[in-house]
Each structure stands twice: as C-alpha cells, then as structure tokens.
C-alpha cells in the first residue's frame, strides 16, 4: 500500500514537471503580456511584477489588430460553414446509403489532403491574381474550406455511422423524406459530433499559416499574418507581442481543450480511436 503511494507521488512529480516544462513558453508569454516593455526584457527575468493592461490597450488601438481578429473570425467561421454545407449531405449519403464505391471515394478524398500546399502555391497564386482574390476574405474562405473538406467529411461520416439506425428506420416508416430525415432526425442525434467537427475545422482554419501568409497582405490578413508582422523588430515590442499573441491563441486553446478526442479521430482519419 505504502509502496504504491510513493510510486504515485513519483509519477505525479515527473508528469507535472513535463507538463509545466511544455506549458512554460505559453505561461511566460501570458505573464509578459501584463508587464511593461522594460520589465519584459529585464535580466534577470521578473517573476513578480506590477501587472499592467497597457499592452492590451496598445494592441487594441492598432487599427489592424481589430481588423485581423475580425478577419480570423469571419474566415474560420465562413470556411467552416461552407465546408459543412458540402460535407453534411455527402457524409450522410455515404454513411447511410453506402455503395460499392463508397470505400474508394473516402480514400480518394483522403488522398486530396496529401497534396503539399507548396506544390500548388504557384497556380493558386496565379489563379487568385487573375480572379482578383488576392488579399480577400472570400479567397481564404474558399481555400480553407477546400483543404479541410476531406477531414470534415471523414469526421462526420464516422459520427453518422454511430447513430442508431432504428430511429431513422422509424422515421422512414412514417414517411419522412431524405431531407427531412437528415434535418429532423439525424441532425439532433448527431449534433454533438457535428459541433466537434465544426470546432476542429475552426481550429485548423484559425491556425493555418501557409496560405494566410502568402495570399494576404493587409485587407484580409488574419491573426496569423498580423502576428507575423511582429517579426520585423520595432524597438521594445515583447510585451505587446505577448499581449497580441495571448489574445490570438486564447479562444482556440479553449476550443482545442474541448475537442481533444475528436481531434485525434479527425487528424488520423479514424485510424486511431
């Protein structure tokens, strides 16, 4: 009994050290956001300091912060809605009316996700230029919904597979059409799955930093690109960088914590459950 207690204490100690070690950069950033610029660069580093909100005010006052935050919200939300609009019917069809081709269709969809973005950077850039989509929110919404479409369809498909069939059966007996079945029977049952799929899609869009850096300049730049603008040093900027970063990651960190399980499922295409 005693031995197992010591063992548990030892494991607690090691595991918590690892957790704090990994979380430390985020914690350090969080703290720096509440320091003055001078306190943020002081050596030896300050653990105790007089907290200030001046960085948060300074960042809010930058016109492009508000714009970028709005862009991030609109682009992640828009791309997720668009992806769902295409995925819900498709996943429904494949989960409930599988044909001989369903399996290969799913695998083919997965294969489109394997295309490395750099491989198609040139044509996408040129197409965007020709259609006037560079630095527009619509452009990024289109790209993001397409790159996440396979993941969204896969996840919805696995969730739909878990819905008990008897209930849908009963609805059919009562003469529900496919669309009625989809919206009034399946949706309420699969809603938790749909919500976590949407969360995962929002996380992936929010943090995407290849297309956002290459296809936007000012008007449509989301937070990933806004933060990147801090890479050109401008005097003392660590505290402001930290405040801006904290605001940029906070909502997504919470979403991520809420959807851990679905994340594993979505990112491994169901190969690890």
């Amino acid at each position: 009994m005693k031995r197992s207690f010591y063992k548990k204490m030892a494991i607690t100690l090691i595991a918590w050290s690892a957790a704090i070690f990994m979380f430390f950069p985020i914690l350090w950033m969080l703290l720096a956001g509440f320091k003055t610029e001078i306190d943020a660069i002081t050596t030896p580093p300050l653990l105790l300091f007089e907290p200030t909100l001046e960085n948060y005010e300074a960042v809010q006052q930058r016109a492009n912060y508000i714009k970028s935050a709005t862009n991030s919200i609109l682009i992640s939300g828009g791309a997720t809605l668009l992806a769902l609009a295409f995925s819900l019917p498709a996943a429904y069809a494949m989960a409930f009316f599988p044909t001989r081709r369903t399996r290969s269709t799913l695998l083919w969809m997965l294969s489109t996700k394997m295309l490395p973005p750099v491989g198609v950077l040139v044509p996408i850039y040129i197409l965007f230029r020709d259609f006037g989509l560079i630095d527009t929110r619509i452009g990024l919404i289109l790209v993001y919904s397409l790159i996440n479409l396979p993941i969204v369809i896969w996840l919805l498909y696995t969730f739909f597979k878990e819905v008990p069939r008897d209930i849908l059966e009963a609805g059919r007996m009562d003469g529900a059409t496919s669309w009625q079945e989809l919206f009034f029977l399946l949706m309420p049952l699969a809603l938790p799955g749909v919500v976590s799929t949407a969360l995962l899609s929002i996380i992936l869009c929010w943090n995407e930093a290849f297309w956002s850096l290459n296809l936007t300049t000012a008007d449509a730049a989301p937070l990933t690109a806004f933060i990147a603008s801090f890479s050109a040093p401008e005097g003392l900027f660590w505290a402001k960088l930290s405040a801006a970063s904290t605001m940029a990651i906070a909502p997504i960190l919470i979403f991520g914590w809420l959807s851990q399980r679905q994340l594993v499922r979505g990112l491994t295409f169901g190969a690890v459950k």
Partner: protein
Amino acid sequence: MSNRRVNTRPLLSPALFVLLLWMIVPLAMTLWFSFQRYNLLTPLTTGFAGLENYKSLLADPSLWTAMLNTILLVASVLTVTVVLGTLLAVLFDQEFYGRAVARLLIIAPFFVMPTVSALIWKNMLMHPVNGLLAFLMSSFGVESIDWFGAWPMASIVMIVSWQWLPFALLILLTAIQSLDQEQIEAARMDGARPIHMFFFIILPHLRRAISVVIMIETIFFLSVFAEIFVTTSGGPGLATTNLAFLIYIRSLLEYDVGSASAGGVIAIILANIVAIFLIRTVARTLEV
C-alpha cells in the same frame, strides 16, 4: 434496414465535384508551368521549355541544400516527437494526482498558431541577450548562444518539435488507452517487469499508431513554412531553407514560375511517397 432506394448523387456530387476541381486544376497547372518558360519579370519570353526547368533546378546546388534541410528537419522532429511522445504517453497513462489538468497543459502547444510559437521562442526564450535561456545558461556559468546564428536548423527543430510533441502524445495516449487491461494484469501476474511490459506489450500495441503519427507528421513537416518565414527567412545563407521555402523564394520573390513549379512537382512526388503508405494504413482500418 429497409431497402428504400435513395438517389445519393445530388447529395454526394457537389462535394466530389469541388474536391476534384481543387485537386486537378492546380495540379495540372503546376505540371504545365513546370514545362514552360514563364517568368513574371520577363513576360515576353514564353514558350515550351521542355525539361529545361527541371535540368536547371536539379543542377542548382540550392535545391540539394534545400532537400537536405527538408530531410534533416523532418527526420529530427520526427525522432524527437515520436520518442518523447511514446514515453510521455506511457507516463500520462498512469494514475497520478491532477492528471486531467496536467494533460491539458501538456497538449496546449499544439493549439498555438505557428507564427506565435515561432516568435515567442525566437524573442523571449532564445534571444541571445535578453532571452530566458540566455539568463538560465549564464546563471549556470555557461556562455549564452546566439541560437539562430550558430544553430539555425536546431532552433527551428526545437520550435517545431515543441508544437508537435503534443500531437504525438495525444494520439499515442489515445492508442495506449485502448490496450487490453487484462493482458497487462496477466503479464504482471507472470512477473513481467515494467521494462519488459514496455517492449513486449505496449510498443507492439502502439505500432500502428506510431506509424500513423510518423506518416501524418511527415506530410506536415515536408511543408514547414511559417516558422521559418518569421524567424530566419531561410538563412543564414541557405541554412534553414527547406523545399517549401525555396519554392516560395522562387515564385513569390523571384517570380520564376517555371522553376518554382518544377520544385512544386518534386515536393508533390516526395509527399506522395509517404501518402501511399498512409492511405494503405487507413484503408486497413476503414469499415464501410
């Protein structure tokens, strides 16, 4: 299941159509451009280039440096994340105090956008004068290092590993938790020591999950871009230029569409080699 016939075509075809378009059009354009003389700075020189773009690219030492850097980056981050991820997964599978909270903390880096993590590491942790690492090293009497000057690739590897270790941990932990507890109990009854259990029960059980982690991470690591973009811009010299960054330089900075497209084709081929194995593994677990 009643055998009501449902026409699934109107449900399925919109998604299939846009995905097909998204895949075929850019792919065909990349291939097409890679055989063209096409530089946005000299719009008058056009025409079929044959294999010229490929020849000049393959003869260019910067391509080989970039390939080597890509492989180095992928291999190092894979090693770090898979080895540490496995050990941490075993650790976090044990009962201990505050496990749920510790777990939230340790997976947090995965949700930090790449530009934020790269800049926080570059400035606040790895800055040679005011960074926290410099302070820690000097307080242990070690001379501080100019990380991005002296060890540019190692610095990038550190940042990317920090972001992706939680991913490996999360997936491997999920896989460990599906391990049959009775099997563990039986092994313990037979007097198996923890080290034996790790090598003869846990590792074999994790084999598929580990291979999935390796394949998915490889596909992502082949295209690491933002971390390099905001820290080193591929430098010093070409020290941190990977294939993705080289293509970016060629296309959006030098406007050499032909050469960049040839590079894109090479990147696509590399990714596909990995993708084939990944799709096979997924196909094995897919029940329709």
